[in-house]
Structures are given as C-alpha cells and as structure tokens.
C-alpha cells in the first residue's frame, strides 16, 4: 500500500510541480494534508510562489535600470 503521509521532500516536490500543472486528486489531497501539518512546507510553498512573482518582474526591473 502506498504511504499516506508525504515526507517534506515529496511535499515540496509536489508544491513545485503544482506550479506547472494541476495535480491529480490524490496528490492534491495528500499535499493539502501535509501542508496543514507542516509549517516548513507551507513556507516553502509560499516562497516559491514569491520567487515566481519576483522572476516575472525581472524584465521590468532591467527596464528601469536605464542609465
């Protein structure tokens, strides 16, 4: 039987994949369960979303860098 609790490593991997494509129903539920109980992974998941926001701003920042 598949282990029902994800490790932080699995959970963070899934958080990253979820930014690229919708997860299957089981993965989604197990990830949510893990995130409810794990502050580190919650922070990770927020942080990678922040890093995406930052990255998407790079062209704009390079634009403002005008000399």
């Amino acid at each position, binding site marked *: 039987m598949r282990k029902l609790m994800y*490790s*932080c*490593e*699995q959970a*963070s*991997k899934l958080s*990253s*994949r979820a*930014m*690229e*494509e919708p997860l299957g129903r089981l993965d989604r539920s197990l990830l949510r369960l893990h995130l409810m109980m794990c*502050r*580190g*992974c919650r*922070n*990770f998941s*927020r*942080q*990678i979303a*922040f*890093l*995406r*926001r*930052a*990255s*998407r*701003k*790079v*062209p704009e*920042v*390079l*634009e403002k*860098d*005008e*000399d």
Partner: protein
Amino acid sequence: MTPRNSVDGREHGTVGGNEESARTLESHRKYLMRYALFHLRESSLAEDAVQDTLIAALAQHDAFEGRSQLRTWLTSILKHKIIDLVRKRGRGLPVDVLQLGEEDGPAGNSFNASGRWVDPPADWGLPDAAFESKQFWRVYQKCCQRMPERHALVFSMREVMDLSTEEICKKLQISKSNLHVILYRARLSLRSCMTENWFAGDHA
C-alpha cells in the same frame, strides 16, 4: 475616410528622424544587453546574442519600421537567440538531469535520509516589499548565478521569459518530468540562497 496628409514623406529620411531612431535603438540595445547578461553571464556571449538580434531585426526592415512595441519585439527575438546560443555551445542542455546528485548546488542536502527538512523554511514575512529595493535585485541575480548554469537557464526560461513548459521541453528536448526535476532543484537552490543572503538579514 480620413485625410492622409500625415504621409508627406518628411517623417522618414530627415536627418533629425535618423538621429532620433539611432538614439532609440541605442537605448534598446542597452536594455537587450542587460537582458542577455542576466541569462548568459558572459559578456562576450551576451554581445553575440544582442548583435544577432539586431541583425535579424534589421533584416525584417519593414516590420522593424512599423513596430510600435519595438522593444517587446526585439526582446522576443533575443529570447530565441539566447536559447540558440546556449544550445549551440552544448551547454545548458540537461542531458543527464536524472543523475542530479548532491553536488548539484546548495539544494543538494536540504533533506535528511527520511525526507525531512534539515533546516525547515522559516517565514519570509511580507516579502513583496523587497521589490522596491535595488539591493534585493542584486542579491536575486547573484543567487540565480549560483545555480548550475543549465538549471539557471531552464529556470529563467520558465520564470523570467515566461515560456510554457511545453515550449521549453521542445526547445531543449527534455521530458516533462526532467523539466519538473530541474525547476524543483532550481527553486530549492534559489530559496535557500535568498534566505541566507536576504531574508535572514535585517531586510525581511
């Protein structure tokens, strides 16, 4: 219809007009150079990419003249030049991504043997305020450059250039799961570097 008295031939071909467009072009060139440097790291490579871009743009002279969003258009040509360059030099092509090892950057040992965080990510507070800080962007760029080069390129194709995962897989001829692995490693590495060099300080 509307009168066409604006087509009087004076806007094109006057000396003033040429100087104007030379200046505009120069400012675009500088921007393209910063953009290329961000992705390529080496200034000689970046110069090649920008030069190729301008040559390609000038070859489509008609399109070039009529563009209102000239910079956007040039940037989209540059993106492809950057990817081509990296591919041609045989770097950045993650042939062996499945053998990502512990040596692959600072993210290699984020977890212990049972898959728990060695150093669980701490709260970054309200990080978006940092967008206003020039120093933040310097740290961010440094951290991107600390990743292995092929990871950095894949990451910035996805996150900075905003290309779709399908497009990246096709361009680099890698599988979707390879791409996910690379993006994941890149994110681990970048967040750990940003924690160390920005958020752990007095900034957050």
